[in-house]
């Protein structure tokens, strides 16, 4: 406790349910033994992230990109490419097709 105040927002911890939810969104599995370490790291990092709460950003536009280029187009022309080369990197193939898991 600093200055006798408890900052509730900074103490807020991420729950196991939340961790599992974001992991499922990111298509990652978290094993039972990893839960604790992920929670610990995520909590510490997120509470550090909340340092940005100190800044008043009202009326400030976001910078998604540092250069002001919008909609860059090039001609829709066919260029040489090598599909066989590309397919070589696929772990599962059948002839010239890429094999993937079934869509259940």
């Amino acid at each position: 406790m600093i200055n006798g105040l408890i900052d509730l927002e900074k103490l807020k911890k991420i729950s196991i349910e939340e961790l599992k939810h974001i992991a499922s969104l990111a298509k990652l599995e978290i094993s039972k033994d990893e839960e604790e370490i992920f929670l610990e790291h995520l909590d510490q990092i997120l509470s550090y992230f909340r340092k940005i709460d100190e800044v008043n950003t009202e009326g400030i536009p976001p910078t998604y990109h540092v250069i002001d280029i919008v909609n860059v187009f090039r001609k829709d022309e066919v260029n040489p490419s090598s599909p066989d080369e590309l397919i070589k990197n696929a772990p599962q193939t059948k002839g010239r097709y890429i094999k993937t898991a079934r869509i259940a």
Partner: protein
Amino acid sequence: MISLELIELPGWKILEKIKNQEIKVEDYIAKLIERIKKVEEKVHAYVTLIDNALEIARNIDKKIERNEKIGKLCGLGLAVKDNICVKGIKTTCSSRMLENFIAPYDATVIKRIKDEDAIIIGKTNMDEFAMGSSTEFSYFGPTYNPWNLEMVPGGSSGGSAAAVASSEATLALGSDTGGSIRCPASFCSVVGLKPTYGLVSRFGLIAYANSLEQIGPITKDVRDCALLLSSIAGYDPMDSTSIKKDYEDYTKYLIDDVKGLKIGVPIELFGEGVQEIVKKTVWNSVLELEKLGASYEEISLKYLQYALPAYYIVAMSEASSNLARFDGVRYGYNAFNESYDWSIAFSKSRTQGFGFEVKKRILLGTYALSAGYFNQYYLKAQKIRTLIRKDFQEAFKRFDVLIAPTMPILPFKIGEKIKDPLQLYMCDMDTVPANLAGIPAISIPCGFHNGLPIGMQIMSNSFREDLIFRVAFTFEQNVFIRSFNP
């Protein structure tokens, strides 16, 4: 003065010898390979070595004999970070996910350096998907600092910097998302430049955080840096964020004179967490530049204290989106089992293919972008980015360059910081502002303490690499030049 071996010389000196036909490219490349055989076991800079380097060297020798036109990098041995695609060669990002991935095309920078007749020696080790500041997060094991093998070389382009420092390559390419070129350059006492965002094509660079990263040179001195930048910079229609700009020969900015230049010293970058010896060494360097005719003033850029959390929020958010493409279907690690449906197959492949740090950053990025938290983290961080850019814009109205430490601390021991989730991130406090603002920044050697290197960072306004080269070159000519090797 200790006389240096041929391969320990900077590239431009080797070029002179090649052009005067004092040495053959083949003999020089053979010596590089010999060096690799001798020290690689200790340094572990490379993930893959290229087996036809000597053959290419012989072809360049033939071109020289026949008086044919030869490129600007005529025969120089170059190491490439393993997140930059070289056609027909494994490009792993030091990840199990891409352990067997063979790049089907050349990145634009690779095309360009091949056109200039550089010879690719190998692909260098890095933190997995460039996520780290120590090269400890590599699936293939860490790289060791050539100055002290117990220490980290910095990261994430640690293999590239270590290769140049130990003369296992003459030049190297790295990528810099939050300091990944400058950090290892500082820790290995070599020169590393993150160019202005948009100056160098990112086509063929495996993306971590698109809006922040640039490919750039890692070299033995400032002249080599300007030479390599001149070869890789320029507009590329394959990268939609590439800037249309005329060709520039950056070596013409190697001017030994800083008279009248104004240096700003941002106090926030010398703040809490910066070791006294680092502060002192960088400050002395500023004073030396003053003696040479530049003037300096301390300035406060108050939003820089928020650069680190804002950077990590943006970088992790972009990473979670970029790394969504790795599903083990078209390329990459695949945890195949007939009984899996697509969702389980994707999850298993990603869970087994990515390392802990990568998963952590994907999770945090997913969290920061998810409903309910988007405004609080991602949007807010992007607004702070605007404020940091404004801080820099104001500063560059008054100053030509800004000088700060590259790294707040000396190289640390392998394993020392890997367990604490925040300590390692804190090392990036002085490098991330340049990425958020898109401005160029170089790290050059400025001293040693107990045998460990210290680097100085010089930043300038966007597309003012000329000023960076002028200050860096003057410093190198008059104040500090490393005349010894590890």
